[in-house]
């Protein structure tokens, strides 16, 4: 028999992490666009906070009601705020609220979801029932009650985040609970149990690492909901009135009849900012869903 000349085994090219990430982003276009918008917004606030005088984001710092010009690219409002500075500060504060409330909500959800699913029994029944009772209540309205019973001077962006988080942990709790329930029955958990790993060992070493994609997806959707809720509260005039949160600017603009008076740039700019924030978060959320849920993952 003749030997077939085999070409020397070619080294399999192992692309590095960045290349793989970029390749994945090319397939998952929604995630790519969402991340791009998000990065642009981050750059806007970071660069803006170094180049713009942030004191101008507060009332009576610049001339009143000036339309967009070279000096004030975004114009100024009725109260003498430079809207460019206001947008820089507002985006930053929105991010703080979103990350704080989203992170806390996810953390509470993960803890409660684990307790419910892993230990079962009475704890599970209690947590599930409380979640089921609270879920049909229009959360935003309860947040309106909480926010309006606070002293106006006590309302800061941090209290906003806490108000939002008080009633926004049910979603992640139920998601994590159902995921832990399915994961609990997997073989690797049984093996760990049989080899005498403690409860905490199983939770932190076996289950938690496998849940990370779900936790990440839950976190992004919590941030989305938190930003949404904080925005609605601010539009109703329940936010920290002094701060230039995007919702506050819209509340102030509609309160002064901005469109009736022709100051169109005043309500439009925060609206566009909000669309970009919520749109990028929604796209990232959908993209992460695809990443976390292989059933809908697209192939190359």
């Amino acid at each position, binding site marked *: 028999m003749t030997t077939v000349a085999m070409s020397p085994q070619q080294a399999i090219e192992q692309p590095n992490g960045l290349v793989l990430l970029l390749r994945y982003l090319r397939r998952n276009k929604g995630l790519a666009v969402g991340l791009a918008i998000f990065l642009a917004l981050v750059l806007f606030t970071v660069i803006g906070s170094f180049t713009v005088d942030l004191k101008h984001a507060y009332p009576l710092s610049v001339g009143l009601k000036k339309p967009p010009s070279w000096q004030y690219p975004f114009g100024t409002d009725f109260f003498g705020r430079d809207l460019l500075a206001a947008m820089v500060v507002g985006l930053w504060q929105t991010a703080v609220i979103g990350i704080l409330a989203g992170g806390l909500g996810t953390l509470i959800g993960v803890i409660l979801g684990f307790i419910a699913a892993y230990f079962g029994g009475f704890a599970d029944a209690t947590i599930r029932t409380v979640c089921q009772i609270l879920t049909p209540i*229009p959360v935003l309205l309860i947040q309106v*009650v909480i926010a309006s019973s606070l002293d106006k001077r006590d309302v800061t962006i941090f209290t906003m985040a806490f108000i939002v988080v008080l009633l926004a942990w049910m979603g992640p709790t139920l998601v994590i609970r159902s995921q832990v329930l399915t994961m609990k029955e997997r073989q690797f958990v049984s093996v760990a149990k049989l080899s005498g790993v403690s409860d905490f060992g199983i939770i932190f070493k076996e289950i938690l690492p496998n849940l990370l994609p779900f936790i990440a997806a839950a976190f992004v959707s919590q941030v989305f909901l938190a930003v949404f809720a904080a925005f609605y509260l601010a539009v109703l005039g329940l936010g920290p009135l002094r701060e230039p949160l995007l919702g506050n600017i819209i509340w102030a603009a509609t309160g002064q009849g901005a469109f009736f008076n022709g100051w169109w740039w005043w309500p439009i700019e925060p609206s566009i900012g909000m669309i970009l924030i919520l749109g990028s978060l929604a796209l990232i959320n959908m993209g992460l869903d695809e990443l976390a849920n292989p059933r809908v993952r697209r192939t190359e």
Partner: protein
Amino acid sequence: MRPRLLIKRLLFLVLVIWAASTIVFFIPRLSSRNALRERFAELARTGGFSSTDMEKIIASMQKQFGLDQPLLQQYWQYLNNLVHLDFGVSLYKYPATVTELIAQALPWSISLLLVTTILSFVIGNLLGAIAAWPRSPRWMRGIATPFVLLTGVPPVIMGVLLLFFIGFRLKLLPLGGSYSVGLIPDWSWPFFLDLMAHQILPALALIFGSVGGWVLSMRGMGITIQGEDYVNFAEHKGLTPGRIFRDYYLRNTLLPQVTGLALALGTVVTSAIIVEGLFALPGIGSLINVAIRANDFPTIYGIVIFITIAVAVLMAILEFVYPLIDPRVKNE
């Protein structure tokens, strides 16, 4: 529906309403704000009466509102009043009761909500179904994409954009209010048309703000249903595409969407409230806006509880209606 299930569902409904009203009762009492004192302090600033009188008035008012009684007794009285749909007296529009104020504003909100919710549900589901339907022409499938992009835009922002482009730039429609300044409300055609013109932008804002979600979920559902055996079978039987679309495809995808509608009700109602406030329509939204600006706490809490009850009851009704559209869930 089996009686046991019915009783269980009703019990759950009562539990939800009780939980919401308990939260609304206790949270304000944890805070240091005194609604009566703030209101009278404001009256004293604008009207001018002596502070000794004010203390007397506040004391008598507290007695009238039952605020001098022990907390548990107040709570019991409060629950008792709720059962009779008595939400107390407005501070801002004293002596009008909150129930009266809500009753005045309610028809406006209901008509707006009913029209926009039904329209966005129908349009969204149709567009989503068409987008997922493999036989629909290419241009019709593409039509859904812009609506999907709208999912991230809250109705209020949609309202601001519509106000800017249609109301402010093109000057086609009014910028807010319920009817034009200077018009006298009567039962005539011009007035009616003016009224309707003021409702178009808020309605469009609500429809555009919520239609994307329906398109998205319906399209997802439509795609999963395509491979099902009964759809293939119907095609091989030679049924017309229209028949398959209507009776096999739409009918099966619609069921989860009705559940989705029940779950989304809370968000739909709150969005409508905020849009009403933006356009200064005389509905619940403007009522709560004014109440927040005027620190009229009984009105804020009354509206919140009322809407919570309404949403919970609507959800329960949708659940009871469910067996009618899904023959598999039997009403025994």
